[in-house]
């Protein structure tokens, strides 16, 4: 069980760095398959501040304090980070983001989970598929769900 996040304990200067990054990200045009200034700096900050960084992302993204398009971009990259020590927390963030009121954030979360390819996210994804109102996004989440189920069956065989 993870310790509940006490947002008042987050270092304010680190939080400001992330907030500034997200504000600057609003001026960028993101392309699939391409790094951006935002993604490069996000990965640098996450590498530097590790566990605290994830808590700040929870605060900013789940708390709906940042632009949803930039939040979605962040979630895709959160899923792509190759770091086993933060794997569970990152997956938790992505699972939480599946319940965002913003469709693009839900999409970013689903894509982040597809990158992680961790079958432990299956229940959250299944729940998200059941609740999803937008047909195209539901279809997309279903695709991710099928991928994770396939990964699970490959791992168990």
């Amino acid at each position, binding site marked *: 069980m993870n310790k509940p996040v006490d947002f008042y304990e987050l270092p304010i200067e680190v939080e400001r760095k992330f907030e500034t990054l997200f504000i600057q990200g609003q001026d960028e045009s993101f392309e699939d398959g391409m790094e951006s200034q935002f993604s490069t700096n996000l990965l640098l900050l996450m590498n530097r501040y590790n566990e605290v960084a994830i808590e700040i992302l929870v605060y900013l993204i789940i708390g709906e304090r940042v632009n949803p398009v930039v939040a979605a971009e962040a979630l895709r990259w959160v899923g792509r980070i190759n770091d086993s020590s933060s794997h569970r927390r990152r997956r938790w963030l992505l699972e939480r983001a599946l319940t965002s009121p913003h469709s693009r954030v839900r999409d970013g979360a689903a894509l982040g989970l597809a*990158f992680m390819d961790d079958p432990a996210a299956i229940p959250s994804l299944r729940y998200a598929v059941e609740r999803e109102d*937008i047909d195209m996004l539901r279809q997309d989440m279903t695709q991710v769900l099928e991928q994770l189920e396939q990964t699970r069956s490959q791992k168990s065989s």
Partner: protein
Amino acid sequence: MPLVLRGIRFNRWYKNPVQDFPWLAPGELPGDSLADIAPQRCTLSVYLVEDNHSNLWRVIAALTANQTSPSHFGFALIDLQMLNSMGFKIVDQPGDTADSIVNSWHRDIVELSATRLLALAQTIQSHGATDQILEKEVHNWITRSIYSNFLDQQRIKITSERLRLKFGLPLKK
């Protein structure tokens, strides 16, 4: 008659995203969608895909091998005949990917006015098929294209070291 493929960001084309844009009238497209068909000098780059999608994987492998860090790939497919009948002017123009055959499937939609561009967006929304291929599959297709020698390794633009190692490509200096 083949289909025309245009890469898009899938989430810009959701139908009736009322939670995100409550002001959007039913059936209307969010303005953001137009960013995916922004022309260069009134010209839009597209690729031909067979009706039965038999070459879809190869086109996507070539397009994503042109990216620095290929991940998922969103696209729209539109009937070429429909575009012709609507008066869109489509010309042969070699593409710029690492796969020379895919390059021969490249076309330009030319002489696009703002009005024609909007008509194209509406055609994609009402008659096109949109889909998204997840990263895992995209990577399988790039690997398949590399091992089939469809991709000229010198022209692959992937810069991510992790991915170059995964695809068995030499690291860039």
